């Protein structure tokens, strides 16, 4: 994995394409156990991200990711805006100074991102939120040194399966405690697409 400025921008462009394509799906996922706006929020936010990145010249990956963070923070709103914003801000800070971001550094940055989301949202693993996608992906990164995009997607896929089976306890309406089982969490799914886009870009490396 070698994330330079170009590839980082490409990652965001591919993410945006996915969010636009999956807008309705994410919104529909947010209806039974949320308020039905997650796809709208993600589509709006990443479109603004791409607009911003296309308008700007970057010398550093960190600078790209900081603009991603600030754009998401100022254009999304809701719960996901500050949470995604925090995640990217943490990643940006962690990779500051690096010309290209290698796997080890990215793994470290992901740990920061997960901690940032947890702190901001006062939540943790197992509560059926985007954390249950960010966290297992981050963990997978820490372990294997010959980690490849296919491994990341395997972890992501596994997380998708388990998040579905989670019972929303803390973060959910009492009524949905049991009913939430079987439902996917929209934030976990949008995170899945974010990393799917990364995998696509990363695969292009080889």
């Amino acid at each position, binding site marked *: 994995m070698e994330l330079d400025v170009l590839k980082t921008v490409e990652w965001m462009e591919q993410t945006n394409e996915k969010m636009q394509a999956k807008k309705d799906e994410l*919104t529909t996922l947010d*209806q*039974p*156990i*949320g*308020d*039905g*706006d997650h*796809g*709208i*929020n993600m589509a*709006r936010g990443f479109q603004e991200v791409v607009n911003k990145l296309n308008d700007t010249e970057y010398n550093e990956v960190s600078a790209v990711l900081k603009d991603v963070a600030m754009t998401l*923070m*100022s*254009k*999304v*709103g*809701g*719960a*996901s*805006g*500050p*949470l995604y914003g925090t995640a990217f801000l943490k990643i940006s800070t962690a990779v500051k100074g690096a010309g290209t971001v290698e796997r080890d550094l990215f793994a470290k940055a992901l740990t920061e991102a997960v901690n940032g989301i947890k702190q*901001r*949202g*006062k*939540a943790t693993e197992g509560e059926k939120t985007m954390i249950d996608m960010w966290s297992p992906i981050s963990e997978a990164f820490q372990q294997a040194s010959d980690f490849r995009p296919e491994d990341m997607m395997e972890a992501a896929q596994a997380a998708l399966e388990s998040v579905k089976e989670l019972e*929303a*306890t*803390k*973060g*959910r*309406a*009492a*009524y*949905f405690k049991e009913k939430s089982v079987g439902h996917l969490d929209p934030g976990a799914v949008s995170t899945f697409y974010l990393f799917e886009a990364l995998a696509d870009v990363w695969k292009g490396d080889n």
Partner: protein
Amino acid sequence: MKKIINDPNQAVQDMVNGFVAAYPDKVTLIPETLAVVRKDAPITGKVGLVSGGGSGHEPAHAGYIGKGMLDVAVAGEVFTSPTPDQVLEGIKAVDAGEGVFLVIKNYTGDVLNFEMAAELAEAEGIQVEKVIVNDDVAVEDSSFTTGRRGIAGTVFVHKIAGAKAEAGGSLSEVKQVADKVVANVRSMGMALTSGTVPAAGKPGFQLEDNEMEIGIGIHGEPGIERKPIASADTIAQELTDRILDDIDISNGNEVAVLINGLGATPEMELYIVNQKVQAILRDRGIEVYRTYIGEYMTSLEMAGCSITVLHLDDELKPLLDAPSEAPAFRR
């Protein structure tokens, strides 16, 4: 989806423009934001009062702007909290050096975005205090919160904190009285149908023709129980009982009551609910000092209602009755 709108993605912008166009002498839009602000803000010697949240709750929040209530209301997209930079602009627009007070409803999104704005404002040297409203007794934790949600009781927080600020109360005095309202206000709601987010194009949930949902929030998020439609009296009894189970209001105490329509329920039905609520309170020896009936905190075109009870004391009563020029809460 049947709506009187132009572009669904422009609905909030169009709404905010239309609101400002209705009261051009009183309010204006902060440039490049969806924040509506009193034209005379910042007001010398007065604590600035900020509220806001996702759109779709009209007349909340801009309808509560005016002398005696809010100074600024920051609108987000429908059911989506506004972003920190917009809230920050709102805070800056109403700070007259006496500090700024934020009224936040307890939803993860609102709390995160408003708190970030508060941090940014403090970094710019503005004194900020806040209250997190959590009046909904239906659920201890919801789809969107840790702890209770904030719903229609927020209107009483606007009114009373607004009156305190207008009367020259200091930032800590405003906070104190807002905290008191939050400690003494409880609400619960129910729905017969759900609303449709314009950009989503389909209803948040579907109920059968004979079903209602109890313990609903104001974002189309699910309640605590789905069951066959009951009579107005039964509904009023269930909601009021749950509220009174949760708060210590006894014989001889005085309260304010708000029977709030969620968007599509005719006022006729709110009056029918009120008939029973008043009877229940009377039976318990609770004195109703003021009753408010109408649409105060809606959820798009949701059919349904919520009941709010605020336990009053001699400090809160005059503040509730103080003058207000807000279009949605004139006194």
